[in-house]
């Protein structure tokens, strides 16, 4: 009796198991947000992008978000995809159709591929230098206004953020220092200093980055996250 159960099990295992019909997707599409080759950094989990693939019935987006350093990556099948950044996402302009919908960029995926997403930001943070000394963190940077035409926007404020982890933003921080846009006298030389509060549990480093809030644009543009030893 026992033996027959064993045989049946072996037979079932031997005849019934086959691999799935399809291999899982394996081709990696990756890249980052750039403006003239310079990386654009954003907030964690805030700036979305979408890929569409047509020809398989109903279409829906394959949506994801850019990493804080502006990079993205997806594992796909080979094929032709259309890439968009939805309206109102990101501290930059993405091309639009005359009707106002986000225009798409076609990406043909055939093997692992790097594809940088070229966008036009309203501002760029240049020469950001983040240094720590005496229990405080200082950020020095200059601001370059990229879009100067009719769609130009003002700076609402600039903020220096610090946090205990590498996720540094308005939502994730232990201390911030802000300056309103109208108080910026020299965009080529902006200074912000924030005092590091008592860390519990103690650690001898913090992460810092600078963000610019642009009037009328929800997402901020950020400098790179810098680890600072205290």
């Amino acid at each position: 009796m026992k033996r027959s159960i064993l045989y049946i099990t072996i037979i079932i295992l031997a005849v019934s198991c086959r691999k799935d019909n399809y291999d899982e997707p394996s081709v990696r599409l990756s890249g980052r947000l750039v403006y003239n080759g310079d990386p654009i950094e954003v907030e964690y989990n805030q700036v979305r992008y979408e890929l569409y693939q047509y020809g398989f019935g109903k279409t829906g987006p394959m949506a994801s978000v850019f990493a804080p350093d502006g990079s993205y990556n997806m594992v796909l099948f080979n094929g032709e995809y259309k890439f968009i950044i939805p309206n109102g996402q990101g501290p930059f302009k993405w091309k639009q159709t005359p009707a106002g919908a986000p225009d798409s960029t076609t990406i043909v995926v055939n093997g692992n591929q790097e594809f940088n997403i070229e966008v036009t930001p309203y501002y760029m943070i240049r020469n950001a230098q983040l240094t720590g000394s005496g229990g405080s963190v200082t950020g020095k940077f200059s601001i370059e206004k990229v879009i100067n035409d009719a769609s130009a926007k003002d700076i609402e404020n600039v903020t220096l953020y610090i946090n205990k982890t590498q996720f540094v933003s308005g939502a994730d921080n232990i201390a911030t220092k802000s300056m309103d846009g109208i108080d910026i006298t020299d965009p080529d030389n902006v200074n912000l200093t924030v005092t590091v509060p008592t860390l519990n549990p103690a650690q001898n480093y913090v992460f810092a980055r600078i963000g610019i809030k642009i009037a009328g644009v929800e997402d901020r543009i950020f400098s790179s996250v810098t680890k600072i030893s205290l």
Partner: protein
Amino acid sequence: MKKTSLIILAAVVMYTTGCKKDSEFLDVQPTAVLTNEQAFSDPAQVLSILADLYNRQLDFSALDNGWESFADFSESFPSANGNVNIVQRNEWNFDSWQSWDYGYVRDLNLFIERAAVAKTLSDADRKRFLAEARFLRANFYFELAKRMGGVPLILEPLLYNFSGDPTYLQHPRAKESEIYDFVISEAEAIKNDLPVNANEKSRATKGAALAMEARAGVYAGSIAKYGVNTPQVSLPGQEVGIPASMADGYYTKALNAAKEIINGTAGAYSLYNKKPDLGENFASLFLDKSGNPESIWVEDFKLKSGKVHNFTVSNQPRYGAEEEEGGRINPSLNLVQSFEKLDNTFAPIPVTDGSGNPIFYNTQTDIFAGRDARLYGTVILPGTAFKGRNVDIWAGYQLGDGSIITGDDRGAQKTLPGQTNPTQVVGFDGPVNSKEFTAQSGFYLRKYLDPTPGAGSRGTNSEVPFIRYRFAEVLLNAAEAAFELGQKGDAATWMNLVRARAGLTTPLAASDITFDRIVHERRVELAFEGHILYDMKRWRLAHVVWDGNKMTVTDLVSNIGSATKRNTQPYALWGYKLYDPSSPNNGKWVYKIVLPSLVTGSNRFRLGNYYSFINDDIRANNPKIVRQPNQ
């Protein structure tokens, strides 16, 4: 011979009785399913169909759809370990609050179609039933518009013809303004078919239709007027966003509808004023089911009928409760301090005096003295009673040197310095950090809590109704519409009615009525009634108030009463008893403002949250549906 005739006889009998046409033979009336004609033959039967449609109305927060629906937006702290994500997340998902229940719309449309042609209904019955169904449909479209903006306006049951081409069933989204126009015009069309009866609460009345119209009017008006502050929150086809030029028209309609209720043509509605103690009176407004003149349309409940709710079980003071649970909604200090002082000024709860020294109070309630009576009616303050029994909310002993002695469990005991026996060092109702079902913010909720014996036990539950429209809100809608139309005198009159009922007897002058006042009055009068999100959305304040930045204590206690005040994290107020036998203040109470340690997130309302996400499958099935902005 005999045999032959017998055979013939048998053949005749079989032929005449045995043979039916196939179509007749198979056409058997089911005994368990009513045909449309049968179902709509009897008024009682129609009412039971309608009852199901009433039951399926959508509320933002309902007493029977979970206490969590009341707990968000930093107005309270969720004192239940399974729900602390409410104060730990940093933002709302784009699909929060979404609804797309076209199954319900179809059933309403079918009801209207069938009731209209039912042969045996009397005209009076038919008129009322049709008006009720149209009211439910309009109110549901209003609920959809609050969440989604413009949606496809489907007013008849759609039927697929199985041709393989469903495109004729694909309807685009209407403009946001068209949905509000529809709600307002339906209310006007049906109001005279509905009974004028202020005692009819659970079925639609003329008062309910007008209250819906007034609210829809101020919603549409404010979206039009304040939408200019968020130009990004709009779509080129106006599925989202209403042109500013339409604001005055909507406010006028709202004002006229509200005036019809206020001047009594829709029934004898008035503010609830049965009890001499104004705080008790405000609490009773939500409990009293016998001749309550204030409620206009409610979702009603009835004991032993199956339609009961466990809101009291979930939120009753835990100590001495009928079940070992409760205390889940803890109103935040943010809300508590926003109740005005009786001289119409705003002030933080006075924890310290001008020079920063703690103030010692003789009793626990002294710190809340001289405030709006709605504070007592909405919140169970430490030192006050529920069901005739004082709640036991205090955080510990403070010693002369400022150090704290407290416990980590309800009613924990420790030995105080200089004593030999352990004594209780923290209240049985908390607050204890991370201890669920205790008053972790220092407060419990009082609104809707049913003091009836048994209401706090799981086997019995409560039959307190959920008020969807009430007279005070109509007054506030009228005041808001009048204010926006420049009629500040009228606005002041109506607001003063509501405020006088709360003990704020010094009337506001016309010049005192500001936008901030309007915003404030709705927040305190209508707290925990499912308004805060939609109010903040329509005024385009949501992304300002919930901006995702953490709050400091300085933020908390400044600018109280300002409409744009940040409100991202729920703060707590913990009371300590001074233990310092040598001090004259020994045994007095001192309070501290704390951020509960579980609060790690801060609410961020993104521009994409203004209108909830329309699912990809909906848009894939119907490519005419445009997506929401900023998502």
